[in-house]
């Protein structure tokens, strides 16, 4: 493969490329689903191919193919240069890239058990056992659970001289109980919604989640929600549980700090950002206790790797320090525009897509108090857990989130259960209202397995680490007819 990769780079240079890189990838994946006591589906997939990215005449070109042989690599390398020349018809200036070091290295996701080597029978048995526990709870109508895994082998080579081999191992899963009564539909998921928790890790993470051990509680809470009070409307102090806060970070910190979208690359699709570059080192994004990093080296993070998809070594970077915006998620091209080095955030969905600036591990550093202590210091609030709906505008300013479950907080104690909890706000105002973050004991890195961006549409697997946090005077209960 290394010879083929080198050949591709040579052909691209001979065709006129001033820079070229190639990623040769094979990804094996598997998904096992159980629904209502039966195996719903088992899907296994292998996808292999290569993508060649070039700069020619000062503009980008990209071409790819699933057929990995010498002749095809030559054809695709020349096609990439042809595409770049077409791009150059509309260039304003020649592309410039921030510098990157040359690396010859190998990286493998730390793991104990390759999830694709664990027998399917074991996964089915675990899901059926979990499913059975949920279905025994009276009032539960639908039960669904799943386990999925991806193992990607990648060779990256560039005309800078880098040859980087990586094996990224990711897996996860979860389940949901659904209760329906009189037109009301309520869900409870474990360990979180959107198919569960995902990590760059081995199958040991599935075992550690103890699916059966939490199934009864999830099912009982789904049924209990049918009789719960509706979310009140007004301003409340809210405490967000980890997985909900993880999505809040993803949507209102991760995306707005993607430097390609700040520069308008996503203006037609994913949108732009309120956090324009004139805000760098100026914008008070959050309160003084808000410290957020990009850290693709974070153990178990779904967005962790050794090198990004343009050969930049994974490193931790500050994004927000003591509430101040200090950097963006960047690529070599975008970092150069603000006079910085790349934060190593270029990632592509498979072999057939050009890398984009994506989230890695976007982590809110922990505070000092325990979650219990923060609750005990809240007089009139709502504790909200597990995302149910999420929506944020194209500049990442205004958001509305809903959670599966919530509890009223009165005089420092959790009270009655609340259903259809929603909250809304504006990004910097919201993060400046953060006055308490739970400590390292409650900190966890959560995975988002389906982050969409780009045209053609790409899916990225990202991570956000956090512990529960409190936000003062947030507008809650915003759905008409759900008051």
């Amino acid at each position, binding site marked *: 493969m290394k010879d083929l990769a080198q050949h591709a780079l040579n052909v691209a240079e001979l065709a006129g490329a001033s820079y070229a890189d190639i990623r040769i990838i094979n990804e094996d994946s598997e998904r096992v689903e159980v629904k209502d006591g039966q195996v719903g589906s088992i899907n*296994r997939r292998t996808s292999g191919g290569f993508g060649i990215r070039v700069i020619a005449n000062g503009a*980008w070109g990209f071409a790819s193919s699933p057929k990995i042989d010498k002749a095809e690599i030559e054809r695709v390398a020349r096609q990439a240069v042809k595409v770049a020349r077409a791009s150059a018809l509309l260039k304003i200036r020649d592309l410039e890239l921030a510098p990157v070091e040359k690396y010859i290295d190998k990286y493998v996701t730390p793991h104990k058990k390759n999830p694709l080597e664990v027998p399917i029978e074991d996964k089915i048995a675990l899901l059926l056992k979990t499913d059975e526990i949920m279905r025994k709870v009276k009032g539960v109508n639908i039960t669904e659970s799943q386990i999925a895994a991806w193992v990607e082998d990648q060779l990256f080579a560039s005309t800078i001289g880098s040859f980087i081999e990586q094996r990224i191992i990711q897996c996860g899963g979860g389940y949901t109980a659904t209760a329906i009564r009189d037109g009301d539909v309520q869900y409870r998921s474990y360990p979180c919604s959107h198919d569960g928790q995902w990590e760059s890790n081995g199958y040991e993470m599935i075992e550690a989640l103890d699916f059966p051990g939490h199934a009864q509680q999830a099912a009982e809470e789904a049924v209990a929600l049918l009789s719960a009070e509706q979310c009140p409307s007004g301003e409340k102090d809210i405490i967000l549980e980890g997985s909900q806060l993880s999505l809040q970070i993803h949507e209102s910190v991760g995306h707005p700090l993607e430097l390609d979208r700040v520069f308008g690359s996503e203006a037609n699709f994913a949108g732009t950002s309120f956090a324009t570059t004139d805000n760098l080192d100026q914008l008070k994004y959050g309160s003084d206790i808000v410290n957020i990093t990009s850290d693709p080296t974070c153990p178990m993070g779904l967005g962790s790797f050794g090198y990004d998809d343009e050969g930049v070594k994974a490193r931790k970077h500050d994004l927000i320090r003591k509430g101040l915006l200090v950097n963006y998620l960047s690529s070599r091209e975008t970092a150069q525009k603000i006079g910085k080095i790349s934060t190593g955030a270029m990632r592509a969905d498979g072999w057939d897509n050009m890398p984009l600036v994506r989230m890695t591990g976007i982590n809110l550093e922990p505070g000092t108090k325990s979650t219990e202590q923060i609750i005990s210091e809240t007089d009139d609030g709502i504790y909200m857990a597990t995302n149910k709906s999420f*929506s944020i505008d194209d500049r990442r300013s205004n958001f509305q989130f809903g959670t599966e479950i919530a509890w009223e907080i009165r005089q420092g104690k959790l009270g009655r259960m609340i259903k259809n909890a929603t909250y809304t706000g504006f990004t910097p105002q919201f993060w400046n209202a953060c006055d308490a973050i739970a400590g390292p004991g409650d900190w966890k890195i959560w995975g988002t397995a389906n982050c969409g961006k780009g045209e053609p549409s790409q899916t990225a697997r990202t991570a956000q680490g956090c512990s529960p946090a409190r936000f003062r005077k947030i507008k809650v209960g915003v759905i008409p007819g759900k008051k």
Partner: protein
Amino acid sequence: MMIDKNQAQEICKKALSFVKEGQAEVNMVQTVAPLTRIANNTIHQNVETSDISLSLRLDIDGRSGRAATNQFDDESLKRAAGQATEAARAITGQQELPPLMGPQKYKDIQSFDQSTALMEPEQRAEMVLKAVNLAKQEKVELAGLVSNLLYVNALANSNGLFAYHRMSQLTMEITARSGITAGRHAKTVRKADQLDPEKVASIAIQKCLGGLNAKSLEPGEYTVILEPEAVTTPLMFLSYLSFGAQAVQENLSCLSGKLGQKLMGDNITITDDAYHPLAIWAEPFDSEGMPKKKVTLIEKGVAKGPVYDLKTAAKDQTETTGHGLPQPNTWGPMPRNIILEGGSSTLEDMIKSTQRGVLVTRFWYNRVVDRKIPIITGMTRDGTFLIEDGKISCGVKNMRYNQDLVEFFNNVETLGLPESQENMVVPPLKVNNFHFTGLTEQ
């Protein structure tokens, strides 16, 4: 190189030859998706991607496994067959599996144009160049894309079924920007010569310029006039949440227990019809190889029925309508070509007849808030205008909505002339009492 019918049949036959037990189905899909992407009046991403994937379903003793690969050498196909066998063998208990059907007859849908499918990067760049030249004259910046797509779908099984269909389309999307003000227009056509890049760009640019110095509106109930792209949002959500038979059977659909009852306004008739002449992205068969039928979902406001696959049809003792997804799955059948019957009004007529209202180009980041009612939330984007005294008076800042969709389709006052929106056909709508619940800017 496009895979023709004979080649597809050979590939499917070869894949099936590696199956040593049980019954099998193979689905081969070829996608060639070149795309030229612009931002800030320059091409910033230009890609040529293509793939051919093959997915093998294998049923053994009432249990089913599926394995997919994009490698077509003997070893890879043998491995896929082995993985599917291993998966099927691993299943304990029974699955409710729909049968693999025998040969079927399909109607012809002409949805392929060779010159569109095989456009070169230079042709896409020329289209972009025309658009950008207009933008420079008006001192706005364009983002957007031009993409020509080729899609080949072939399905075969060990009972002799074989289906083949190919589609192509050309899409141009343009978002014109000036500061934080944006205007958008998008067009998808079957044949490249049906698309005028300067017209697409011109509409987007005029929307952008017309939206400058936008005002804030107080949240509340408004009469809205929705352009066809905006109409696809409530219609798409209503369709996938409520119009599949499994959702109805599971009591998750707003149609559950209400078939035959009046749910929406008299002026609402919704069908699923792959054969509608304006449906651009349409196939004559579903993922089970069953011919697609035209299905009336809502007729003059009355709930008529969902779309079915083989499994859900058996449960309701009826016939499939040809809306199955790859089996087995936990999703159930889905509508694929939603047609909302229109009227004779134009967008201009609707604006003239409106004392005070909001014109919406499209909605963005739409998500489900309540599964069954259903309620969705989202925001306006890329061209939102205030209408006063029958005229567009100014641009308005984007607003968030939370909207009950059944209520929405009870509040439709006027329907316009339907047009293609890729796999859907929808008219512009004038709708009363639309719920804007917040602003997107402080």
